[in-house]
């Protein structure tokens, strides 16, 4: 989703912080729509799971919507993203259809992966999403390859790769950031630091408190920001994306955020406190943006409610589409193992 950035903010945005003032109404409306879509998508996915309609596992990003949507705001439709096991948000933020996502979740032929991939592998290749990934850190070296490909094809695109705090301790992180740096690849590394890799707090898992502290090891710009602040995420991402597009090389952005739900469906939350979860629940990135917008008279409550309601409707229709969709044909079991 590409946005038009106001060089000088119109008069009525003059007293707003620059990150907010930089976003016009249409952009904000779309950003809010996508954040709601993500939230509802995941709540409904969770529901469907509880009701036995979805098998396997799932990793919900409820509470992390701002980093996904904010990061994708400055992207063009033909820019690339690479996502993670916790990838629904990235997928929607890059413009995917919730209907095809639900269909994938339900294992249907109409799903993004024709029911073969499931939640952990949803890819919207046409839309520039080169896939969620079941392997922690798996997308990082691939992103370097996408960056190299962009550079060789001189097509002026950019690749954003999302990963978690836990992934930053994988060797793949190190190798990918180093290659992106030495070759000045148009890649933006976006760490969604939700403070845990499964049960492992970042303080226990990582030698440094901030993932972005590692950017110096690759001589690339690195910044740690409040990942629940959509305008800030968008402004930070825009800078990195522009830099990448100018051929000046990669950046590392660390969005501090929190996953409200357990790691996956089997998590009993033994490694964190209820209080901590509640604290972060109160930092909901959606409500926070809405409050700021109302506070600055950018939107009134009615408009916000309408945006949310429309998202709810879209999700309800998406589920219906998915439910009504056909299952894969078992005779096509081994289709697409090889390309011809």
């Amino acid at each position, binding site marked *: 989703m590409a946005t038009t950035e106001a060089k000088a903010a119109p008069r009525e945005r003059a007293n707003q912080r620059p990150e907010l003032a930089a976003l016009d109404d249409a952009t904000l409306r779309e950003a809010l729509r996508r954040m709601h879509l993500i939230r509802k998508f995941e709540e409904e996915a969770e529901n469907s799971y509880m009701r036995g309609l979805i098998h396997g596992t799932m990793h919900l990003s409820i509470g992390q919507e701002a980093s996904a949507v904010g990061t994708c705001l400055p992207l063009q439709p033909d820019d690339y993203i690479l996502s993670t096991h916790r990838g629904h948000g990235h997928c929607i933020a890059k413009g995917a259809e919730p209907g095809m996502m639900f269909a994938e979740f339900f294992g249907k032929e109409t799903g993004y992966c024709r029911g073969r991939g499931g939640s952990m592998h949803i890819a919207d290749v046409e839309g520039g999403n080169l896939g969620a990934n079941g392997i922690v850190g798996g997308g990082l070296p691939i992103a370097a390859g996408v960056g190299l490909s962009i550079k060789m094809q001189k097509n002026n695109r950019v690749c954003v790769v999302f990963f978690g705090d836990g992934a930053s301790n994988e060797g793949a992180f190190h190798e990918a950031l180093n290659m992106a740096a030495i070759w000045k690849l148009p890649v933006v590394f976006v760490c969604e630091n939700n403070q845990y890799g499964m049960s492992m707090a970042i303080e226990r898992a990582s030698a440094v408190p901030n993932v972005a502290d590692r950017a110096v090891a690759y001589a690339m710009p690195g910044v740690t920001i409040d990942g629940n602040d959509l305008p800030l995420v968008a402004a930070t991402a825009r800078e990195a994306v522009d830099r990448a597009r100018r051929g000046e090389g990669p950046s590392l952005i660390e969005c501090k955020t929190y996953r409200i739900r357990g790691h996956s469906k089997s998590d009993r939350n033994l490694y964190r406190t209820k209080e901590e979860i509640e604290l972060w629940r109160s930092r909901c990135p959606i409500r926070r943006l809405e409050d700021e917008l109302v506070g600055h008279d950018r939107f009134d409550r009615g408009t916000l409610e309408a945006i949310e309601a429309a998202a709810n409707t879209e999700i309800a229709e998406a589920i219906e589409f998915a439910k009504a969709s056909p299952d894969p044909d*078992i005779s096509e079991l081994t289709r697409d193992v090889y390309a011809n």
Partner: protein
Amino acid sequence: MPTDIQPAGGEVRELSYAEAIREALGQAMEADERVFLFGEDVGVYGGAFGVSGDLVHRFGTERVIDTPISELGIAGVAVGAAITGMRPVLEIQFSDFVTLAMEQIVNQAAKIRFMFGGKATVPMVVRLPGGSGTGAAAQHSQSLEAWFAHVPGLKVIQPSTPHDAKGMLLSALDDPNPVLIFEHKLLYKMKGLVPTDAYRVPIGKAAVRREGSDLTIVGTSLMSLKAEAAAARLAEEGIAAEVIDLRTIRPIDFDTVAASVRKTGRLLIVYEGVKTMGIGAEISAMIAESDVFDFLDAPILRLGGADMPLPYNPQLEKAAVPQEDDIVAAARRLKREE
């Protein structure tokens, strides 16, 4: 119910496969302070599949160690600890992630003893949950054990019952060589009789689970249980299948398989990994190159995973690996062959 409950002392009672592993770990850690468990989320989380459970509370965070997500690194930690006197037990959260740790396991752990002229040992145990059936799709459902059967220096086991899980893990901890244990995720909740004592089940010995004279079915891991179920159904049709649970895929207990095939003249091998180059290939080839060849009355059949990544959709997922019906059908076909 396993047919080879050891004459171990102590009570016998029902435990799940996961509980049996946990009991073995606890007993080993009590008996030998060199033993420790580490891996991703094995501590307070209790392990991704709940296998370690409360061990961290019993033994503390110094002996039940949560690691960063660094599969290559933690495999190397196991090697380093093993060659300097410890007995590490490493859990690779899903066996699919061993793809990140192959270097340390294959180039270091398996070879150090030989490369050093016998002057070091690498007594490490790696636990690897594998297999499909949980809807976890292509990167979380593989059965990769056959790769390791190709690697001299390693031992590779696949216990299929709670009894064997406990006894073989304890044997693995006695073993001065690196031992990989492939545990099927669908087995963790299965129950079986397990003695309370710290008994051993030997590595390298297959178990005859059911005797029969018409054909031999060799199964590994979950598939040996499916083979037993299939054999029960076959018996109703008058087909007497002998069922062997291979249990160890490196080294393979050729004698047990050979003795059975000499008797039955027919062999069916069932495993979940991809059929091509799966463990069944080796068993078939061992038989075909031995003098047992002369006892064969029919081709050697293999049932293995379809030639594809594991699909997410549950119907497809089931269709991609052998099921009880497939075993029954294959056994019938084999019985008819002349």
